[in-house]
């Protein structure tokens, strides 16, 4: 167990690699109840969210969800989050545990008349069930990604969200905090493998989902991070002008994915020759090589470019690859 954003979290149950493989080949469950839930309600809630979030929230219907960014005036990232539209004027934002306070305060300070922002994190439990066999094991049918509905899983009434952080099909089950232990136990009883933070990190890194605090921060902008696709630059939101400028001029550096060409494992903070830096690195259980994400000058960001990474004093060769690093379809 390790301390994480005020919670005691398991890094692993059986082991990072078997848990990772369970999610890629069958099904794994993550207790991510530490994540934050912010309710944003009121007649002006949608207009308010449109003005503070990078993506176009007007495109989200009741029962829909959207990946988006809470951005600063200079285009930095306060947090990346998923916004769920519950009904007209009722939104739920699921934010990173480490940014719960920052995101809440950011919104609260800007809350206009006709909007109420409320931190409801302690009222919710959250269990992610992910993997090709996940839906069948817990008795759910398929549904489009980024939708949600209220339903029952193993006798527990829960919000069933078609979202995740692994690159696999699956759901995130958001339920009242008092129901999360029975829900977790029921999911495991159906043969889903419990997974810890370690596998959560290797899974998200194989599919190049950024981790706030590592790959994206208030000092990095969305365009350089490759998140231009969640920035609706034709809408008005905080930081839009700064992001437009980065886009028009072309970013000076870019977040790239890379694979090691020799036996070495990149880690966060390692220098990349030419002025770059590794922001996330690990050993890929699926590919059995070192993989990572890092910022490099734009000239080094083209797929196929060779990189030299300083792995504890030794220059190790890597190659920039297309995202995602691991793709089921390839």
């Amino acid at each position: 167990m390790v301390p994480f954003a005020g919670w005691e979290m398991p890094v692993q149950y059986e082991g990072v690699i078997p848990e990772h493989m369970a999610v890629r080949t069958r099904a794994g469950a993550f207790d991510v109840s530490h994540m934050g839930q912010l309710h944003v309600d009121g007649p002006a809630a949608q207009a308010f969210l449109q003005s503070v979030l990078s993506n176009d929230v007007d495109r989200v219907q009741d029962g829909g969800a959207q990946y988006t960014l809470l951005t600063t005036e200079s285009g930095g990232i306060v947090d990346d989050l998923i916004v769920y539209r519950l009904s007209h004027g009722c939104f739920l934002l699921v934010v990173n545990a480490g940014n719960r306070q920052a995101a809440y305060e950011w919104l609260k300070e800007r809350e206009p008349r006709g909007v109420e922002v409320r931190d409801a994190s302690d009222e919710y439990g959250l269990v992610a069930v992910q993997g090709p066999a996940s839906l069948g094991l817990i008795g759910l049918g398929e549904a489009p990604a980024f939708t949600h509905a209220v339903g029952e899983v193993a006798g527990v009434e829960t919000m069933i969200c078609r979202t995740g952080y692994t690159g696999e099909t699956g759901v995130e089950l958001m339920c009242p905090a008092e129901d999360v232990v029975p829900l977790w136990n029921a999911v495991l009883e159906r043969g889903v493998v419990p997974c810890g933070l370690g596998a959560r990190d290797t899974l998200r890194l194989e599919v190049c989902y950024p981790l706030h605090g590592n790959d994206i921060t208030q000092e990095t902008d969305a365009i350089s991070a490759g998140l231009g696709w969640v920035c609706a630059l034709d809408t008005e939101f905080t930081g839009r002008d700064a992001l437009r400028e980065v886009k028009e001029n072309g970013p000076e550096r870019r977040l790239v994915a890379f694979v090691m060409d020799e036996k070495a494992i990149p880690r966060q903070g390692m220098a990349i020759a030419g002025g770059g830096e590794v922001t996330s690195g690990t050993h890929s259980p699926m590919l059995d090589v070192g993989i990572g994400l890092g910022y490099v000058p734009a000239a080094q960001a083209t797929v196929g470019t060779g990189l030299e990474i300083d792995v504890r004093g030794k220059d190790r060769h890597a190659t920039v690859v297309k995202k995602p690093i691991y793709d089921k379809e390839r």
Partner: protein
Amino acid sequence: MAASESYPDDLRYHPEHDWARVDGDEAVLGITWFAQDALGELVHFEAPEVGATLSKDASYAEVESVKAVSDVVSPLSGEVLEVNQKVVDEPETVNEDPYGEGWLVRIRIADPSEADALLDVEAYKAHAAEQ
């Protein structure tokens, strides 16, 4: 398949969780069950070169799991005669058999008296239990 906890009584142990199997003027070195269990499944062994000089208590290699990297400390001074290529190719061998197939290097011992300063199995077990 990870091995179950064991500490053979024919080995000498270093408090940094390394072992030596002394045979005349040579020794085979590895990491203990405790060390591999703390790291989890190994995915990389950064081996020394054959011919490299090892100093007692200094790092001579690295072992790395998904979670963490750890220096491997030499229990004895000497010269590397052989590196276990099986562990270079399949680092998880250390988890499966830390005292057998999962040995790391074979060395020529520089100073046989150094082995006397290492822990015997009972002293090492007591040390590991305190960690």
